[in-house]
């Protein structure tokens, strides 16, 4: 898991849900979007990877919707 204080983080879906849960306690959070890539970002951790999109949509999104609501 990346440094929680850093601008960029590499997270598993479960870690991402925990992180968002923490953010949602501090600010009113309605929508979050995941950045596609950055310079020197490996392809397997960028959104240009199909697997990344699958994890976001099929694992993180259901958990997040269940915890916070639609």
């Amino acid at each position: 898991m990346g440094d929680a204080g850093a601008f960029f983080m590499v997270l598993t879906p479960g870690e991402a849900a925990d992180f968002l849960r923490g953010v949602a306690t501090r600010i009113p959070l309605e929508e979050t979007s995941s950045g596609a890539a950055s310079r020197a970002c490996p392809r397997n951790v960028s959104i240009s990877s199909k697997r990344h999109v699958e994890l976001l949509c099929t694992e993180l999104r259901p958990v997040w919707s269940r915890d916070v609501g639609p």
Partner: protein
Amino acid sequence: MRIGLYLDMRILRSGDAPWARHYGRWIELIEEADRLGTDSIWLSEHHFFEDGYLAHPLVFAAAVATRTKRARIGTAVMFAGVEAGRAARRGSGARRPYQRRSARPRGRCRLPLTRVRGVRRRHQPAATSSSKRACGRSASFGACARSPPAPVQDPLPWWGRVLLSPRGGADGGPSREWPAAAIPRARPLLPRRPGGGRASGLRGTVRAALEHRAGRRPSSRLAADLRAYSRTRGIRTVATWSKGTDRPVPPPVDPSMMRAGRLGDG
């Protein structure tokens, strides 16, 4: 709670070009994301970068809309000056390929190209959000009110970035953002400064970048703008990113870097 994708269309490897294949691959990925249930697709606008990005998010958004069914489509910051220029060219009648009656689409909603029947002139659509509202008031145009989705942000936010420099813009200074529908209109809104501050908008930055690219002269104004941008965003971001690694913190952008062809990290 919604989860979306923010896509900048950046090329990570040189092998991703040519552009048609590059953008086509993104369209396919977006289509798959829409099928899997992503809530939104966000696009950005960038210019003068060698590693791709997206120069015209509205055109790409239209392409995305033809291939997706439920995801909302939005843009990040867009260059108001560029869009205003396109609108002015359309209004001048010099090139009106999309306003010819024979070229109009035959779909249910033609709001960008036609007036809304049954609505007073002062309520006629001037922008997407107001078009939707006007559409909802019009019984004779009820089909449009059923056209999903409604705008995420209503009214649409327009922000102009104005760079302020305490010493006339030569050294780059603190950056402030002003809500301004048109960049030139921001100039009279700026407060007077004891040191004789100078305001510059995106138009000057783009012009300076074009002159620099054409090799006419190294632009100190572009250097100042980029330096101010880096201080307020770029350097901070990259410095945070390099924290805890062996990567050096990149130096501020300066004219000598530009003459060497390196404009710094975006």
